[in-house]
């Protein structure tokens, strides 16, 4: 009886299937085989460019990474070799720091409302709908938005405005991940906490949130990894800087924007720095997203 619940396999479910296949009208069989081969070719055709990209970035990036100063030095003047992008690594971390410190509290607390207080309400539906649509809008819009509400007001490009742009980008992902994590916490835990006299605030902050913490952190890491690679929102906010930025109120170089500017320069040295920066950025982003995926796989209640 247990077998009935299994998803029926379209593959060779025993030998019967193959026998019927042989008796079949050859045209149907050939069509099927052609389509099978075609779907395999398609799958291979999608994996191929990925491996190609990874290979190219590794090959060309490693060559440029041999300068030992690449993580500590400023980029060279146009046309000259030697130099690094230490300022862009620091800048990226600054911008991400601002983005996380805005998006995480807002996103997590909003999701707490959705999962703990407002389940099934019209408001929760509206917020979720809006967050889903927000996650689909062009990333460049987040940059224009931050330009218009922060850069305009303070009169200067800044790491802070870049952080605001990336925070808008991350917000829907954090809300969704947190809400899903909270919904996975069994209701018995809430009832037990309330049963021994905990208030709602205590239940949520001391029981529900710690239980969901791994999944929430995973969501935050994935959102950060996504934001770390975005250049478009930073073009009009953090902009760029050829020197070390010391404050979040100054224009700040970031890795994606640096790659963009260096890739369109006609100099060999700039281009090889762009490849090296790509390798570092890609390694960073992929490590984050692979780690996050490994974390979620283990989480079960």
């Amino acid at each position, binding site marked *: 009886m247990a077998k009935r619940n299994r*998803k029926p396999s379209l593959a060779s479910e025993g030998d019967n299937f193959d026998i019927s296949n042989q008796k079949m009208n050859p045209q149907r069989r050939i069509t099927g085989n052609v389509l099978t081969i075609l*779907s395999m070719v398609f799958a291979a055709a999608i994996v191929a460019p990925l491996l*190609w990209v990874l290979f190219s970035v590794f090959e060309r990036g490693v060559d440029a990474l041999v300068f030992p100063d690449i993580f500590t030095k400023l980029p060279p003047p146009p046309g000259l070799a030697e130099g690094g992008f230490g300022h862009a690594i620091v800048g990226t971390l600054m911008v991400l720091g601002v983005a996380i410190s805005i998006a995480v509290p807002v996103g997590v607390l*909003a999701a707490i409302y959705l999962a703990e207080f407002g389940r099934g309400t019209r408001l929760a539906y509206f917020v979720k709908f809006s967050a889903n649509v927000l996650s689909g809008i062009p*990333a460049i*819009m987040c940059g224009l938005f931050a330009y218009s509400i922060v850069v305009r007001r303070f009169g200067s490009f800044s790491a802070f405005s870049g952080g605001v742009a990336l925070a808008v980008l991350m917000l829907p992902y954090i809300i969704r991940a947190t809400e899903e994590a909270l919904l996975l916490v069994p209701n018995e835990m809430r009832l037990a906490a309330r049963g021994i006299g905990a208030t709602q605030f*205590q239940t949520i902050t001391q029981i529900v949130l710690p239980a969901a913490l791994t999944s929430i952190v995973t969501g935050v890491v994935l959102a950060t990894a996504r934001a770390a*690679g975005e250049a478009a929102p930073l073009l009009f906010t953090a902009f760029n800087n050829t020197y070390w930025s010391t404050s979040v109120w100054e224009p700040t170089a970031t890795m994606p924007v640096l790659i963009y500017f260096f890739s369109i320069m006609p100099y060999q040295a700039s281009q090889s720095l762009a490849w090296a920066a790509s390798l570092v950025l890609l390694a960073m982003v992929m490590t984050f997203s692979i780690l996050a995926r490994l974390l979620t796989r283990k989480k079960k209640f």
Partner: protein
Amino acid sequence: MKPEDQSTEFQRKGLEKQTDTTRVLDVGFLGFTLLLAIGAGAVLFWIIAQTALEALPAIQQFGFGFLFEATWNPVTTTYGVLPQIYGTLMTSFIALLIAIPLGIGTAIFLTEDFAPKWVTTPIAFLIELIVSIPSVVLGLWGIFVLVPVVRPFFRFLNDILGWMPFFEGTARSNNLLIVGMVLSIMIVPIIISITRSTFEVLPSDLRTGSLALGATRWETILRVLIPAGLSGIISSIMLALGRAMGETMVAAMMVGNANRFNLSLIEPGSTITGLIASQFGEAGRTQVAALMYGALVLMILSLVVNILSELIIRRFQNIE
């Protein structure tokens, strides 16, 4: 005092004690999260309103003619986004043309037991990795690695199909076709992942029923599973379309940013996002307003696509 009274008295006191500190905390917490939830929901509308506000001077000055004007000239302050709208729609269309068959074919390959789990799991994982490649890295790869490989292909298209307006002119490295090709790599994982989950939740009775009636695997897939999962597939395509329309860096790096209208796919073109990325930095006041107008057009296009796909997903979930 009776013991009963004593206990209720005790209870009442306990509750009162709670009222003082914790009740305030509870209500305050609820109110605070409510406020942030409303705020998070409102961000979308704030973005739309803010863009519209910034675009207002340009809307007043150029009106709807902006959509049909083909020149972008800061010197004469003539602004129009017809070439950019064409480029945005055309690159997205090319991307979908490549990504839809590849994506659906791969999703079928991954879900319908064509290969053992140890083959499909790593493939699915690798495909998910594409999502985490920063678009600026894909653009860099496109410029320096892909372009030299496909340039002969552009010349070939020009030789064979040069009589069509889409392939006329001189083949260049930066054009709408190459942007469409790179965009297709970026959007294929979206189509695959949503189509996959659609197939996975389809009731197994559909498969058994169809097989029992004597249909082959592929007849089952093409005539039963795909029609049954159509709304999921369509919404995945819509989401992918939205992503393709809004992608900026690949367009900014590879589209060529031509400022005149050109039907050809193998000559430099322009997209709305590419225009904004390349011109915003040096833009003066009117030009910023015009760029914001362009952004508003893009926003409206992507909102329509996004909301449609969102509604299709909701409808689909209700059936389940």
